[in-house]
């Protein structure tokens, strides 16, 4: 090491302030480092950056030594005696020393486009964000006519990352083409799928990029007001977004004059109230309008009659936060990542029973096995993988025999699964798969908005059938009845909740036939 710090110099110490890091004790670590440094007469600046995405290494601490950030993790306050004895603040050797995050294979092999800036700095440090090139996307958009912005997004191949994978450019084009006295941009931050946290991590780690993406969307379609609909279960993301919106407005990213231009755009944060259905775009709009979040019939599409009946772009957090890099670096740059009709990168979330969980942003095409074994290091319990649920509570469970499937929209559709929002939840061989099937229908029954009968009644009846099956009281005929009920829900439900809740159930009935056979009466 290039020698100890010059006496009197201030050492920058990064302690992740992401909710997942805080949940594992990062606040206590940050306080203890500050206290010990003060007691030892060392001047430190503690920066609470976002997460670098390696949840298994949280709380992660990085020490800036000779211009490089040396990481240690996972650090608990119990490790600090040893770490300070090993000269932590000078980058000293210790069992928890990892070196630069960028050199860790888990991180180095990623392709971070959407998450390029996430977790590097204090998420509310606007100057740091600008210095890292944060403004480039909005600046480029201001040089282009609206139609050219939409064309760039179309050419990039970006599809909705919330789960539906609808081409973003096509949605924007529809809104652009509407003549209306006002239009809206709505950011769907109601990230309710179990196993997903990329929206949260982006909002907590790089909120200005999301706000820049919303601003570009506003310029592209002629909208002047944006809303972020954030779930109430994310109190830390709420605090970061509140601060980011105030700062971005004060610094002119948006407001009456977007970066000093003649365009105006503003953003308001709204909170959900614990209803999973609000992740569905029409029920989200109902909720924003102050109603029970019952879904709307389509047509008309929200792009034509959305919020308060006006043309509205509804996009997920990751979709909007990806727009700035597309504008800044060009549609072709983004499109050149990926495979087939799955262009660009996808922030995958590795979760559940996994040794090294966290956020992996890669070009589409990585196999499930590479993700779970190479990145994840297998199960946390050390037992064999039995099943992997992809795409949230409405996604199929895939079997251990299907792990070589590439993570693309097409390949997963080919095995009756879906990528959804990119959440990958691993289960070991101790999991009772029939209980997971029962849970899927109980969850649907709990969260159904009640508007359509196949979902409202179907999920309740299916949960009852599955309870009987779990209790060993079902016959083959009842399983056939359950299959039939699944068909009814799939073809008769108004939205994806009732229409897709049968997918995990059916994937278990078909993928784990022995588990079913063992339980039959």
């Amino acid at each position, binding site marked *: 090491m290039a020698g100890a710090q010059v006496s009197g110099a201030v050492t920058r110490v990064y302690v992740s302030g992401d*909710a997942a890091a805080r949940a594992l004790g990062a606040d206590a670590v940050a306080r203890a480092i500050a206290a010990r440094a003060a007691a030892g007469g060392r001047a430190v600046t503690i920066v609470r950056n976002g997460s670098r995405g390696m949840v298994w290494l949280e709380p992660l601490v990085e020490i800036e030594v000779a211009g490089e950030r040396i990481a240690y993790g996972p650090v608990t306050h119990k490790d600090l005696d040893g770490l300070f004895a090993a000269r932590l603040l000078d980058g000293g050797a210790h069992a928890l020393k990892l070196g630069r995050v960028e050199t860790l294979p888990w991180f180095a092999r990623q392709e971070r486009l959407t998450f390029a800036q996430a977790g590097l700095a204090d998420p509310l440090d606007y100057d740091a964000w600008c210095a890292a090139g944060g403004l480039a996307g909005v600046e480029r958009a201001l040089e282009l006519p609206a139609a050219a912005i939409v064309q760039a997004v179309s050419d990039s191949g970006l599809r909705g990352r919330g789960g539906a994978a609808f081409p973003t450019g096509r949605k924007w084009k529809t809104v652009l083409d509407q003549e209306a006295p006002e239009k809206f941009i709505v950011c769907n931050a109601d990230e309710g799928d179990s196993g997903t946290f990329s929206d949260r991590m982006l909002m907590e780690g790089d909120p200005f990029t999301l706000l820049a993406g919303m601003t570009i969307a506003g310029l592209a379609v002629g909208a002047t007001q944006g809303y972020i609909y954030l779930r109430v279960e994310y109190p830390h993301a709420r605090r970061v977004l509140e601060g980011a919106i105030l700062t971005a407005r004060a610094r002119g990213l948006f407001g009456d004059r977007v970066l000093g231009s003649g365009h105006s755009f503003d953003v308001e944060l709204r909170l959900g109230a614990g209803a999973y259905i609000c992740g569905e775009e029409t029920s989200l709009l109902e909720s924003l309008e102050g109603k029970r979040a019952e879904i709307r019939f389509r047509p008309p599409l929200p792009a034509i009659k959305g919020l308060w009946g006006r043309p509205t772009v509804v996009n997920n957090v990751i979709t909007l936060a990806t727009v700035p890099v597309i504008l800044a670096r060009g549609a072709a740059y983004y499109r050149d990542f990926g495979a087939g009709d799955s262009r660009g990168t996808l922030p995958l979330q590795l979760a559940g029973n996994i040794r090294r*969980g966290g956020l992996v942003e890669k070009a589409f095409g990585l196999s499930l096995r590479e993700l779970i074994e190479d990145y994840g290091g297998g199960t946390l319990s050390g037992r064999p993988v039995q099943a992997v649920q992809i795409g949230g509570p409405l996604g199929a469970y895939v079997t251990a025999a299907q792990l070589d499937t590439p993570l693309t929209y097409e390949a997963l559709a080919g095995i009756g699964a879906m990528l959804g929002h990119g959440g990958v939840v691993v289960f070991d061989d101790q999991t009772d798969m029939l209980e997971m099937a029962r849970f899927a229908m109980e969850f649907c029954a709990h969260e159904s908005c009640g508007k359509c009968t196949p979902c409202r009644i179907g999920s309740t009846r299916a949960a009852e059938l599955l309870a009987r099956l779990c209790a060993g009281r079902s016959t083959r005929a009842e399983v056939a009845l359950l299959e039939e009920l699944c068909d009814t829900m799939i073809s008769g439900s108004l939205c994806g909740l009732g229409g897709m809740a049968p997918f995990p159930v059916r994937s278990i009935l078909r993928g784990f036939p022995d588990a079913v056979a063992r339980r039959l009466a």
Partner: protein
Amino acid sequence: MNTPATASADPIAEAIAEQRERRGPLLPLLHAVQARCGHISDEAVARIADALNLSRADVHGVVSFYDHFRRAPGGRHRLGLCRAEACQAVGSHALEAEARRQLGVDFGGTTADGAFTLQGLYCLGNCAAGPSVLIDEELYGRVDGVRLAELLAEWRGRK
């Protein structure tokens, strides 16, 4: 956030004044009332309905749709336990049983000492470090029965 944030003479009026000019004011207003009063009372429903020119049935219908809003007072702290798949994969069923045992209540119930209301939540976005628990606005990961007991002791001591 479940205990009244301010000791205002008329917190409902204050919330109404603060939120009524927004577009689509009902949800922000319900949040503001619950933050101040801990729950949304019959009186609050009537006054909100009056202020926004809605029927009481309309307001009640919205309140009852959303799990986060409650019509009756709860404990001093809201203890939310994640019951979704990723936490189930790492033992949340056992934690649920522990929570019921340690608190002596089921989901939806409030402890005898009024300290906690136990609530089931579906995902806290901490899926790589579950099982997860949210107490008021503080998130905790990798929680087992021992850790839960520590947290309950710590939070019982808080206001």
